[in-house]
């Protein structure tokens, strides 16, 4: 009895008690739904927890087998591949270029103002941005077609043609300088020891050479982070597609996230929707793992 008391005295419980609420919340809102969706992906499940009604039958891996022979699902992954590659490219390049420009401003106040100018649009709801772009692309009243009309050129239906719809969706958000990634890059550039740049300059390196030899290699942790977040974001994102084209025309801009949403809420096939979600999760985990393996940040340090 005495020794147990001593153990209680020796162990500091305060940190565990403090972390407990967040662990409980995580368990309820993150781990439980994750575990449930993995389990339910092996069921034909109509979403109800009431055993008397609805469908809740264990079917093993049938959902997965059906998905991998489903042309829509496979096409949606091909479309995602396009969005991932183009999304990663723009997120790696444009916010970094912008960060370099802002970082090169010597006057602190001006630099701050530019940072604010690029971050401020983050407060505009993304839905507004999507609808704005939908108007820009409109065949009759859109800016693009009105400019073409002024130039006596024929109209283009960018959102209504399979060959152009994905590019039109990617172009939404131009010039692709998202506030979050911009701040990540600026923070990265700020953390590089300035003496390195000074040394390079003394050695006669041009500004471009300094960027290529110092700024880019030493921003590797930031590039890695942006790459990982971009891939995950592009795989998960379906809101703009749902808003602008609903995956159309046909399945030209359909993505797995949208298929999952429709499967659950339009068809009540929650089991299959879970299977789509689990597939997305596995792909995201594998990609994140691969990125971590490929870009070991220690070497950059």
């Amino acid at each position, binding site marked *: 009895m005495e020794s147990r008391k001593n153990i209680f005295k020796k162990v500091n419980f305060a940190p565990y008690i403090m972390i407990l609420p967040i662990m409980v919340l995580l368990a309820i809102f993150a781990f439980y739904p994750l575990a449930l969706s993995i389990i339910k992906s092996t069921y034909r499940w*109509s979403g109800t927890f*009431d055993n008397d009604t609805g469908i809740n039958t264990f079917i093993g891996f049938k959902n997965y087998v059906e998905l991998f022979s489903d042309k829509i699902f496979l096409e949606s992954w091909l479309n995602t591949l396009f969005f991932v590659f183009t999304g990663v490219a723009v997120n790696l390049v444009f916010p970094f270029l912008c960060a370099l420009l802002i970082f090169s401003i010597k006057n602190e106040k001006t630099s701050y103002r530019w940072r604010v100018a690029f971050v401020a649009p983050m407060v505009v709801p993304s839905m507004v941005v999507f609808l704005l772009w939908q108007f820009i692309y409109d065949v009759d009243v859109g800016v693009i077609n009105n400019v073409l009309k002024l130039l006596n050129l024929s109209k283009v239906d960018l959102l209504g043609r399979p060959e152009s719809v994905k590019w039109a969706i990617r172009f939404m958000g131009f010039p692709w300088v998202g506030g979050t990634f911009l701040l990540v890059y600026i923070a990265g550039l700020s953390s590089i020891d300035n003496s390195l740049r000074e040394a390079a300059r003394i050695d006669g390196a041009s500004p471009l050479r300094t960027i290529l030899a110092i700024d880019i290699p030493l921003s590797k942790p930031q590039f890695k982070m942006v790459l990982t977040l971009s891939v995950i974001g592009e795989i998960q994102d379906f809101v703009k597609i749902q808003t602008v*084209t609903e995956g159309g025309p046909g399945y030209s801009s359909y993505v797995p996230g949208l298929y999952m949403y*429709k499967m659950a*809420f*339009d*068809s009540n096939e929650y089991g299959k929707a879970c299977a789509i979600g689990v597939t997305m999760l596995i792909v995201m985990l594998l990609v994140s793992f691969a990125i971590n393996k490929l870009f070991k940040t220690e070497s950059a340090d």
Partner: protein
Amino acid sequence: MLNKIKKILACVLVVASVVSMAVKAIDNTKAKQIVLSFWGTNLPYQFALEGVAEQYNELQDEYEVVIDKQDAGNYRTWMGARLAGGNASDLLATTIVYANTDASNGYLYDLSKHLNEPNPYSESGRAWKDDFAGTYLTQVAYANDTSKFYCVPTSTVSVRIAINTDILTENGIEIPTKDWTFSDFRRISEKLEAKGYTALEIANAKYINYMVSWMIDIMMSQLKYDDITSYDVNENGQVETEEIVRAFTMEENPLNLSNDTDLKEVMEFLKIWSKYWGMGFNSRDDTSENFLRQTVPMMFCGSWSVSGVELTLNNENPEADKTNPYKAFNYISLPFPRLEKENYIDAESSYTFTNLKSGLPLQELGEPSGCFCIPKATAESDKIDGVIDFLQFFTSAKMAGYMAKAAFEIPVIKDVEVNEKMYDYLAPENSESIRMRFNLLNLSDGVAEEYHFKQVQMYLIDEISLKAFCKNIQNKYLEVTELLKEDNGWEW
């Protein structure tokens, strides 16, 4: 000092508790609140709904009906989550597909018992169900058990071709009448096209505005008239889910769309016609903007769009400047032009339908709309009597007439006058309701419906062949009907 503050705080807490208990006690004597949720952006409809609630609240003291407008884009997700969580509003706007799905999950209350009793707000004295005109009520019967009703309709919808008669007159074109044919329509279009107009616009961007599906159904109903009659086993004028499943899965001579001449001809015909719809029909959500700006003289128009058109034209600007580009004009809405055996396309071509019989009544779509359901959680609460009472009040002839006048709704209740602007949207003489849908509609599977819509989109823009289209549709029908057969244990 600290003790003093503690005492004051304690006193404040005691007083606050007493006051809140008193308020709650007073509140309990107040009317019980019934929340009606709906989606949409149609302002006249919203105002009319509020008007109905106001009239009901004035009529009695026990319940207070509150109208709650939800975002149209997220309504289904919101509704599904609330129903699953057991905290949905007391009355929910729904569709036949949603109601079927939610009923199969056990989320909804069966109204059949009440429908067999008279509606206290009806002067007819007949059962509530008999107040509904035609087959509007039977069309919303539960797909898996047609004796059950998990929602009731409050209106119907129809589609027309709205025509700006001022533009036709200005260009010396004779205004067509209700019995016009497709050839008449094309000849008018040609004259308008010669004047530089895009004659007609159709919205077909998303499956919620799947206008082409209406055309397919109207045409298929004419071409497959005899077959459809044979599929209606219970002869109630409607080919219901079970009958559709039977048609596709019966052993002898099942319906096979992959080699169906009628479907092939309808799709070929639509593809030819789509050349004249104006660019962007697969990316267009709405056609009323160009119609209202008078840049397009004809649009494929659903009855639900009339209130918006009227609202704009009633606020017209004679100068039609940048602040308000809408100038009033005269328009009529005509039924879909009749098909003939041989249809004029242009000076060099025509289209012949192999199986079209002459003299058939015009096929009209009149799907039940404005449906409302009651969540099971409400049914188990002390508000259920009030909710049923309000629903009966809402579907009384008086309120149906009010909705028709104020919100341009087409009533589904017998002997109700409609808004004069909606006369064109009522079923014309020598017409009958479409009995069977050919686009996987109302088969309890939204993804399947969307599949049909997307296949049509792809066929119209040459992304898939006609053969592939028919094959894909047949396969999807078989997949859906086999599943429905298995789930319900249907045997014939």
